[in-house]
């Protein structure tokens, strides 16, 4: 097995751990590459197509390398009601990318997620897992500036 993926060995190679294996890959590399799919298929002794089948079913898995700072716009019900569509538009204007994309410099990537569970602070977004609440245009721009300089 490719030395890069030796960390998989911490997981019991029974097929019920397939999702766990993919999550471990994404945890380390930020996404699931073609190369890692073969490694997972090998490790769990299942065909590549089965790994792809599982992978494509779940929204969590990314197939392209995300940016350094990963922005998730919450589009849960409360956030939607409170204007997440506009938050998304503002981010697109500022960054020049749409949800699902990474900017050219590889600094930011943008995605929409179903719910971050912080509904009472709607609208919210998270950057690298940290949640920011009660967003308006000003705070969105400010948060982006902070990360640009990080």
């Amino acid at each position, binding site marked *: 097995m490719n030395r890069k993926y030796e960390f998989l060995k911490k997981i019991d190679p029974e097929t019920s751990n397939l999702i766990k294996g993919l999550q471990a890959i994404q945890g380390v590399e930020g996404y699931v590459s073609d190369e890692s799919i073969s490694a997972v298929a090998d490790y769990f002794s299942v065909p590549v197509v089965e790994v792809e089948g599982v992978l494509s079913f779940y929204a*969590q898995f990314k197939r392209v390398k995300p940016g350094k700072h990963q922005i998730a716009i919450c589009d849960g019900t409360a956030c939607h009601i409170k204007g997440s569509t506009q938050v998304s538009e503002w981010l697109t204007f500022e960054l020049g990318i749409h949800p699902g994309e990474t900017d050219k410099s590889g600094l930011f990537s943008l995605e929409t997620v179903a719910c971050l569970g912080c509904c009472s602070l709607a609208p919210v977004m998270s950057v690298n897992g940290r949640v920011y609440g009660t967003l308006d245009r000003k705070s969105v721009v400010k948060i982006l500036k902070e990360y640009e300089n990080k």
Partner: protein
Amino acid sequence: MSKIAIKKIRVGVASCGVAAGADAVLELLRNRALPFTVEETGCLGHCYAEPLVEAVLDNGESVFYRNVKADDRDIDNILALGEKDRFEIPPKRKSKELIKVLALAGKIDPTNFDEYVENGGYAGLKRALSMTPAEVVNEVKLSGLRGRGGGGFPTGTKWSFLAAKDTQEKILICNADEGDPGAFMDRSLMESVPHQVLEGMLIAAYATGATKLFIYCRAEYPMAIKHLKIAIEQIYAHRLNTVGDRVLEIIIKEGAGAFVCGEETALIASLEGQRGTPRFRPPFPTDKGWQGHPSMINNVETFGNVPLILREGAEAFAAIGTEGSKGTKLFALAGDLKNPGLVEVPMGTTLREIVFDIGGADPDKVKAVQTGGPSGGCIPVELFDTPVDYDSLKKLGAIMGSGGMIVIGNDRCMVETARYFLDFTHRESCGKCTFCRVGTTRMFETLERIVAGQGEMSDLAFLEDIGPKIRAGSLCGLGQTAPNPVLATLRFFRHEYEEHVKDHRCEAMQCDAFVDMYLDRAKCIKCKLCIKNCPIGAISDDFAIDNTKCTKCNACKEICPKKTIFRVKKGELL
């Protein structure tokens, strides 16, 4: 008079608290050399007041501080027990709430085993272990507890199905997928009192003879997962996982972002490492579940109720609530209201009490509430005297669901809200059943047309025709309930649909297709902030908005210090 001193300080650092900045407040407090401890705690349910800090005094009382900022002024104010920003639970809310399941949330450190035990934790398990398994099942039956995951199935009855199985391996699964966008009851409970959920699971394992315990938790809840992991290690260390003659294994599995995996057969498929598609029942999971073994699934909150029942007895539990719905229920209250948060009320409390008395919503500004998320329906304000229990909500075409409750204000469009839910369900449909896969997509496309101003009256008839067909032709609850938001809005807010179609008008001024941005030049102070902030240069130097260019993103409306920019009906004020 001797001076009252602070004994310790607690900072609520559940996800909502952290999002509001509680972690920075905690750090500032810990950087001070203080003669008492600064502890982390979970969620008190008053999200609108986060970050929330509690100063526990040496006379046993507490002073709370709300919306604390991470600066020295606010910290000094707390340490001096100042009057600024003091927080008290609004009296109206206090009188309507009944805190049972959440009694320890925000009161103890979630990662501290001893604190849980000192406050009555594991007394329920202890009592259960002194009874026979059959007696425990019976106790839960007598309590009248029904599943909190949405279906409302009697919990004791479900337990008796698994208990009756005579096999080597039996599986117990805690459903912590909480996929309903707009719900966070389970998250709060797991983050704030993880041991309570686990105690419920251990009691269930003893009662049913289960050997392996799974918690299927959505990956979006890192703090819940962390706290559960710590709690499980503590359980192992104290050997509480030995019930009767069995040593139980407790395993956490993270979901991977699929709503349908909250459905029990899909969840089991996902636990097995497969695509999470539901299958036909029977066989029911209690007959044939995880890897063929009898398996039983209960929701987080369901398990969270169990220790109370065992500790206080079935009778005390059944004394709360209504005829068919016993105990209390947690609701995640959010949307257009003053005091969003996590609330706990006796079953049978009316929507009016929850939304207005507890949530502090303005009665003149609310038109509906959505219960049960994308599977539920919206209930118009005229019907707010409906008691919240499983059966009353069902009659209105809504459902209790797991407890997400979104308040919808007058300035929201119901057609757009229905479109939002169908956008969600059509994407989350696993694709197995044709009616669900294609039907929800057709519904979504139709709604998209209506909000874009291209709807026809025949579209409304189409929606009403296809809805029941999707219900009938779908294998699982996702498809069976997906049409609910559309059918309910068509029933209660038909005039809004008709307005969109016939008059090209959106009363709430929300649907961009029917809206122009209008700047009231008489009130404008010419600060040019709007011009600078328009991302696409649609505002000219003399403050005219080019509505053919404008994308209605509201950037100008938000930035205007004098509030001179409005959304108006297209073509009306130009």
